[in-house]
């Protein structure tokens, strides 16, 4: 069986098991939809009081937020295995079994769970994205739709890279490091505002270390037809999401290094 077919098999098994508890699945989905609504609440209140910030309106913020949150929601569907890797695979020794199977460990971890409840976050993110775009008057020409898809793909690559990196650290620490939530959930919070609002050190962190700005800020500027107030050249704006793939490749290097030095915890 080729990898794609195997992955489909994994996902359908996971879906079937979650649908054994339809009430729970639906409530978790609705819960995710409602809890993510509050992500926008603070921004709404601030714009209500201050009107604008550096020429940006609530509609712009909604587009920034919608793009990065959509990327994260899509990533969240299939990265649960990496998220719980330390606690449920390394600490318990279950990773030994994964290594014994004749398939790549990454593929097996992706197939660990397909999280149905993330539809709630995805629905909310897309709703915010398109309502925001309508408010600021984005004209969805084919090249912009393509750019949006490319941006979100880059974002999925970046968030997947973060989760792979989090899992890689578990080879050294044995536990899952929840500090990484700062970069995923905290990253969504940070990337929902234009980078020009931040101090230089933090901006550089979001461009060069964890390139969240490259999968949200720059390409969204191109979607909004805005030049970069910080002076990045026009060709860079739609190119930037490629950095998500660079980050993903580096994360897989760390993952390889981790596997090669893996020693079982026994038991």
């Amino acid at each position, binding site marked *: 069986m080729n990898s794609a077919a195997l992955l489909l098999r994994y996902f359908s098994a996971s879906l079937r098991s979650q649908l054994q508890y339809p009430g729970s699945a639906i*409530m*978790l989905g609705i*819960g995710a939809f*409602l*809890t993510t609504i*509050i992500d926008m*609440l*603070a921004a709404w*209140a*601030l714009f*209500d*009081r*201050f*009107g*604008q*910030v*550096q020429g940006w309106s609530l509609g712009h913020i909604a587009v920034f937020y919608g793009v990065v949150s959509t990327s994260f929601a899509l990533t969240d569907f299939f990265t649960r295995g990496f998220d719980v890797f330390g606690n449920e695979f390394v600490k318990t020794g279950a990773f030994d079994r994964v290594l014994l199977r004749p398939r790549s460990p990454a593929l097996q971890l992706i197939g660990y769970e397909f999280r149905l409840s993330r539809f709630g976050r995805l629905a909310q993110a897309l709703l915010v994205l398109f309502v925001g775009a309508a408010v600021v008057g984005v004209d969805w020409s084919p090249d912009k739709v393509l750019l949006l898809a490319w941006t979100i793909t880059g974002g999925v690559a970046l968030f997947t890279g973060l989760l792979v990196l989090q899992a890689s650290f578990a080879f050294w620490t044995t536990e899952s*490091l*929840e*500090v990484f*939530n*700062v970069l995923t959930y*905290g990253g969504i*919070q*940070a990337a929902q*505002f234009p980078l020009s*609002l*931040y*101090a230089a050190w*933090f901006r550089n962190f979001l461009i060069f270390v964890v390139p969240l700005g490259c999968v949200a800020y720059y390409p969204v500027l191109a979607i909004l037809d805005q030049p970069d107030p910080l002076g990045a050249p026009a060709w860079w704006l739609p190119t930037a999401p490629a950095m998500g793939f660079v980050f993903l490749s580096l994360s897989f290097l760390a993952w390889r290094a981790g596997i090669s030095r893996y020693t079982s915890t026994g038991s």
Partner: protein
Amino acid sequence: MNAARPYLAAFSSRFLLMLQYRAAAVAGFATQCWWGAIKVMIYAAFFAATPTAAAASPMTLPQVITYTWLAQALLALTPWSADPEVALSVRTGSVAYDRLRPVDTYSLWYVRGAAWMASRALPRAALMLLGAGLILPLIGLSDWAWRPPPTLAAAAAFAVSLPLALALSAAFLMIVNIIVAATLTDRGVNVLFNSLIIVFSGNLLPLALYPDWARTALLVQPFAGMMDIPLRLYVGQLSGTGALAGLGLQAFWTVALILLGRWAMDRVMRRLEVQGG
């Protein structure tokens, strides 16, 4: 005094036990620094963007910045989730032991919960005070720092208000615990109350910065007393009669939630089914 002894012992043993989790405290501190820094930069950008609106704002930027660091420092003082010990004892059936002890179960859980929150908040608050209150001014970023209270009266009001906030949070925690005891799981109730608390305690945004038409309603709801009221007293945004009203609201909600909790606990314990065996 003798009547209080078992509860004091329960409080101090839980408090000292939870203080041992130093790595968790450092990790929590790192997380809260990140969130605090993002928030402070965003608020500063908004205040700088529209000077007229900034002048009309009920809180000045330095007040908002101090509020933000304090809110991050005292994060663990709000009842984020049911007491994990209670949730576990309900699931495993060891809740039966608590019922057999010759002490009042409500009071026992209450002091244990208060100790749990206080012990998690204390090391994080100390680290945050060191980082945002001392190191930031020392490296020349005093504009972004956690400042001392403006007046002695503000400091005194905060000193009264903070224990009240803990008492109120513990009273609310008991309601969450009782829901867990009745439904046997802490999953749904934690998700539900998390969002309520993050918004209405002022953690997401200082309550005074929401639109003016919502101001009174946001102040009188019970969650304000868990964090927003003490922090407003600290920065001096509530003073004089306003400060007294804030303290009164905290006391009122504490008593109301304890009465509600005791009533609900009686009902739930009467038909409690013990799990496991």
